[in-house]
């Protein structure tokens, strides 16, 4: 038996009362793979992790670990799995005892337990907090201790449920960088769920996009970013502009019935246009092109952030070095084809 677990879900249907909250026909996670599950709030991400962790049994279907169907409720299964939840869930004892407790439950002797707990706290940069009451920690410290507690168990499958939720931007970034560095050194299968694309993509070999309990797309991070399968996925991965368009017989992309500077070899018909805000170029109005009026202009990190309204609302990020558009001014809107994706239908 290897040091990592493979995981398979087959014909999963899960209900909460009359509502079906999860419907996954098949999902295979190879031993050692890092899978990110990306989805909006209420998509069923946490429910999926709970099924994987054996905390709940699916209403129908089977979860297999290393090819063996799991028996929900069994402590033996859970002891091979590390699960760091959204809430740190620390107990009202010292930080060190929080990390030691699950080791004690596994029968690890006192000296080894203490050494493992301190090593895990050191890896997460919080060993100096070992003797502090855990409930007195800040949110960021608590999440680090919670992850140290999961990693101290040396799990073969690590489940991370939005571990950086609730942290401010700086703490979040630093925490996620530390997780990425830690996981790079370790041989374990990881499933990480998040509603934030940047967080999910950072840790993933593959990304599963979950919406309303169903898998919309399962692909590598760059594929999901460059080629989202539908408008929902495009919005989830962060495209600022997801708007309807049409390819005409000449291969010209039309937005609101007017050209926007992109040609395509796709067959004529309706498409969804997914464009980053940095893809938007503004020019003086000219006859026939797609136009919009600058509605709101504000300064952002290294850029002007502009909202333009017309037949479609468009968000643009323009270089800070240039003069900002003036609210009320009308512009021709062009899209950079390198930063724009067309989705069928």
């Amino acid at each position, binding site marked *: 038996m290897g040091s990592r677990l493979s995981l398979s879900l087959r014909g999963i249907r899960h209900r909460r009362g009359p509502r079906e909250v999860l419907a996954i026909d098949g999902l295979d996670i190879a031993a050692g793979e890092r899978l990110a599950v990306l989805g909006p709030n209420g998509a069923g991400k946490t429910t999926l992790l*709970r099924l994987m*962790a054996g*905390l709940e049994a699916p209403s129908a279907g089977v979860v297999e670990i290393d090819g063996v169907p799991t028996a929900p409720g069994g*402590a033996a299964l*859970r*002891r091979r*799995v590390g*699960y760091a*939840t959204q*809430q740190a*869930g620390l*107990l*009202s*004892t010292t930080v060190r005892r929080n990390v030691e*407790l*699950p080791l004690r*439950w*596994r029968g690890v002797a006192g000296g080894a337990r203490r050494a493992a707990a301190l090593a895990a706290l050191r890896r997460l940069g919080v060993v100096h907090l070992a003797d*502090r*009451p855990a*409930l*007195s920690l800040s949110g960021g410290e608590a999440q680090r201790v919670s992850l140290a*507690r*999961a990693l101290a*168990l040396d799990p073969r499958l690590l489940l991370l449920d939005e571990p950086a939720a609730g942290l401010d931007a700086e703490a979040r970034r630093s925490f996620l960088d530390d997780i990425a560095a830690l996981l790079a050194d370790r041989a374990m299968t990881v499933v990480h769920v998040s509603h934030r694309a940047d967080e999910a993509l950072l840790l993933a070999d593959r990304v599963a996009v979950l919406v309303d309990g169903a898998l919309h797309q399962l692909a590598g991070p760059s594929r999901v970013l460059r080629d989202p399968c539908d408008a929902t996925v495009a919005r989830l991965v962060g495209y600022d502009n997801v708007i309807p368009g049409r390819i005409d017989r000449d291969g010209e992309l039309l937005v609101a019935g007017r050209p926007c500077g992109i040609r395509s070899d796709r067959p004529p018909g309706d498409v969804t246009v997914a464009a980053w805000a940095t893809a938007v170029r503004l020019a003086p109005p000219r006859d026939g092109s797609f136009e919009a009026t600058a509605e709101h202009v504000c300064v952002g990190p290294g850029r002007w952030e502009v909202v333009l309204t017309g037949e479609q609302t468009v968000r643009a990020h323009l270089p800070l070095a240039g003069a900002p558009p003036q609210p009320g001014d009308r512009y021709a809107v062009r899209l950079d084809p390198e930063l724009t994706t067309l989705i069928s239908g």
Partner: protein
Amino acid sequence: MDAVHEVLGRSALVSLSATAIALLIGVPLGTWLALARVRGRRLLATFVNTGMAIPTVVVGLVVALLLWRSGPLGDLELIYTLRGMIVAQVLIATPLIAGITMAGLQALPPELPDQLRSLGANRRQLVIRLWLEARVPLLAAAMAGFGHAISEVGAATIVGGNIHGQTQVMTTSIVEQVGRGEFGEALVYAGVLLALAFTINALLTSVQQRAASWARG
């Protein structure tokens, strides 16, 4: 008339025994009510909460009818005995302890049981950890149970009979003295009873508050 220390000893014996037994029943019952997801749980929780408000004299009456020599449990010969009084006080304190235990455990973060399971806790380890997390309300439950038991007079009078040298306790003794117009002696007994309640509650409060302030850091 019994010496005050004899009556005090009897009061302490009956109430502490009743509280200990009520804790053994009430804490697991309250835990089950807080954690179980079965039909009828809410109805039982309502019964327990109602039990917290039942007048002790009503409990005394029911227990006396059950323990009466011609009653269904008459063969046990518990009427007018300290053991019979303990039975009555257990019935008085148990709903209080179960209700506070249930509320204390339900006040913990709702995701905590699953978090402990996900860390590998089996059922016994889970319950013990939850009790430790809820130690402040659990100590409050013990104090409330003891306070209810030591201060009640209705059940003690009906079930114990206030027999001198056998079942007279502090509260029944005070009632008897007031009935005889011996207010001075009644006040002394009341002061001693208060001192006993204060001592035991001070001990429990000290443990409780130390636990609470430590957890906050």
